[in-house]
């Protein structure tokens, strides 16, 4: 039993049973707790009141365009990979009211939205998801144009990371430098070890708050063997990744291959449905809708998740700039992997594989990128962009 506050960055050992007070301890600190749980046919993120709600003994099977829940041979709590939800839903909500207005004689009054932001403690955040949150931080906490909704939610956040010891065929975090073990950006990080009836966790605090919560769980010193076991479990999972992406020079390649036969090919399959952008943990685009009441005395402005796959997304005076599926798919991929670097200093993809699994047409960006690496062939039309809808 450790008596002092556990040192930040040091691994400790917890029996699974010792984690039971985790949620009460977070709730006492004023957090609402959310984590993975089964709803219908998937593992989603939802409010948790007890660790019993975790998907113990379940795993998930992923391929391009398909996802299935499956029973595991053991009772691991975190023996699956990321599902349709991302934590974006908690930090950057799909719908928010920005303000309302009431008519006041010949003038009007703005009613500010000042609902207090919920303080979330998120349990089970994978390392690719920490990387995604770091990306959204760079975009939405910008010095000059901070997003107040995101900021309020982000400031109060408590993050319990879980290092993956399983992988899915759709994961390619190693290529995107977001693979476990998580090194920073969490309050507490756990690595699950299950062997028969022995169910343990290695735990590490990443912040003073995390250390305080960990202290309440009564952690034991981890031996070198425990630490090695955890390391190896992670290494084994990461060694087995089936997908990868060639990233060196990717940005330049995509800019050079602005015209490439593969774009048409992808466009023929792309439904422009927008699922990929909705499930992506880094995609942040929104639209605003102004609504007025029937009686003309009230109005409100709503913000909703939007997608670069919709026609209205690029609507400017006179029409939409991107009318073809080709131009939209190219915009999405090129923004994610190239223009994002210019704008925000890193790619906008962490290799979580969600857009591959949840694309109803099974379009796989790793395959598209691999094909785009092939030479573009002779420039058509003398190298000028082809005429017609873009």
């Amino acid at each position, binding site marked *: 039993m450790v008596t002092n506050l556990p040192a930040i960055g040091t691994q400790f050992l917890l029996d699974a049973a010792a984690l039971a007070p985790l949620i009460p301890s977070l709730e006492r600190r004023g957090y609402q707790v959310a984590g993975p749980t089964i709803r219908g046919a998937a593992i989603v993120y939802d409010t948790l009141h007890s660790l019993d709600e975790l998907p113990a003994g379940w795993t998930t099977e992923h391929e391009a365009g398909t996802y299935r829940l499956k029973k595991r041979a053991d009772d691991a709590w975190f023996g699956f990979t990321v599902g349709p939800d991302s934590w974006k839903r908690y930090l950057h909500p799909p719908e928010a009211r920005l303000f309302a207005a009431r008519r006041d004689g010949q003038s009007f009054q703005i009613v500010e939205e000042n609902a207090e932001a919920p303080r979330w403690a998120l349990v089970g955040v994978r390392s690719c998801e920490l990387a995604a949150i770091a990306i959204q931080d760079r975009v939405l906490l910008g010095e000059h144009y901070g997003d107040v909704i995101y900021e309020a939610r982000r400031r109060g956040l408590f993050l319990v990371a879980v290092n993956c010891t399983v992988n899915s065929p759709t994961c390619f975090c190693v290529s995107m430098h977001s693979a476990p073990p998580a090194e920073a950006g969490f309050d507490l990080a756990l690595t699950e070890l299950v062997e028969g009836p022995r169910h343990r966790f290695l735990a590490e605090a990443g912040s003073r708050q995390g250390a305080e919560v960990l202290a309440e769980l009564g952690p034991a010193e981890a031996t070198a063997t425990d630490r090695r076991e955890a390391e190896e479990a992670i290494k084994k999972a990461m060694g087995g990744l089936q997908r990868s992406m060639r990233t060196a020079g990717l940005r330049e390649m995509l800019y050079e291959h602005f015209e490439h036969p593969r774009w048409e090919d992808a466009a023929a399959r792309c439904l*422009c449905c927008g699922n990929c952008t909705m499930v992506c943990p880094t995609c942040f685009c929104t639209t605003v809708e102004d609504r007025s009441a029937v009686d003309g005395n009230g109005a409100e402005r709503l913000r909703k998740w939007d997608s670069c796959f919709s026609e*209205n997304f690029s609507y400017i005076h006179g029409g939409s700039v991107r009318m073809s599926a080709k131009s939209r798919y190219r915009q999405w991929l090129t923004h994610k992997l190239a223009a994002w670097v210019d704008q925000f200093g890193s790619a906008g993809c962490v290799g979580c594989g969600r857009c591959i699994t949840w694309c109803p*047409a099974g379009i796989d960006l790793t395959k598209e990128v691999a094909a785009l690496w092939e030479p573009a062939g002779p420039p058509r039309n003398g190298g000028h962009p082809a005429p017609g809808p873009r």
Partner: protein
Amino acid sequence: MSSEENGQGRKPTVAVFKFASCDGCQLTLLDAEDELLEVADAVEIVYFPEATSTMIKGPYDIGLVEGSITTHHDAERIQQIRRQCRTLVTIGVCATSGGLQALRNWKDVGEFVRRVYAKPDFISTLKMSTPVAEHVPVDFELRGCPISKGQLLELISAMLAGRKPNIPTYSVCLECKRRDNICVMVAEGIPCMGPVTQAGCGALCPSFRRGCFGCFGPMESPNTASLTAQFRVLGQSDEEIVRAFRGFSAWAWQFRQAGEECERS
């Protein structure tokens, strides 16, 4: 279209017309009980046989048209209605794409009439059920079977305020994901028309773990060929795929084409 804007210092007048349909869309207007009082305050409903016996003659500021054109009489009446309405809005899948009754467009109507009616001679009907827009110019369409109450109120509010209505033309999938549904196609292998269907229903069917039936008609850029290919991956037969496209919005040209292509293949 505020009262200042119609230049006569009066509330805009609204007329509701019905063609071949089940009345469900008009009922959506009546169903908006809480909001109806406000609507009745803001506009004057002067012709609405379903709801009131007052039937004031046109012209009208706003005409809401439900139902498809299926008889010679319909085809003439819609011309008169168009002439009487400053703004003509079609409501529901029957008016916007011909409705379920457009399934007859692939069959011999004469044969139906002979089988169903004792005295077929009294029946005068067109060979096809067609959307209003195939007959007269339409200013705005509200899709769905039935239409969404929220969209109807949004359209009315927007017209009153003289602003553009927020009626999205993107896929049902965006609403489905915003609502935190689990995709039935990816997670359960259930064929879903959501990716090619216009939003507006709030992803109602997928919220109940069913595939979308496409009652809001084709979205802005429906890639029906890709969805057909995916339905095949899910093990759907050609017959099943034709049926998926040939449902509520069968006669909408993109779905019509998709069904016919699948039949040919």
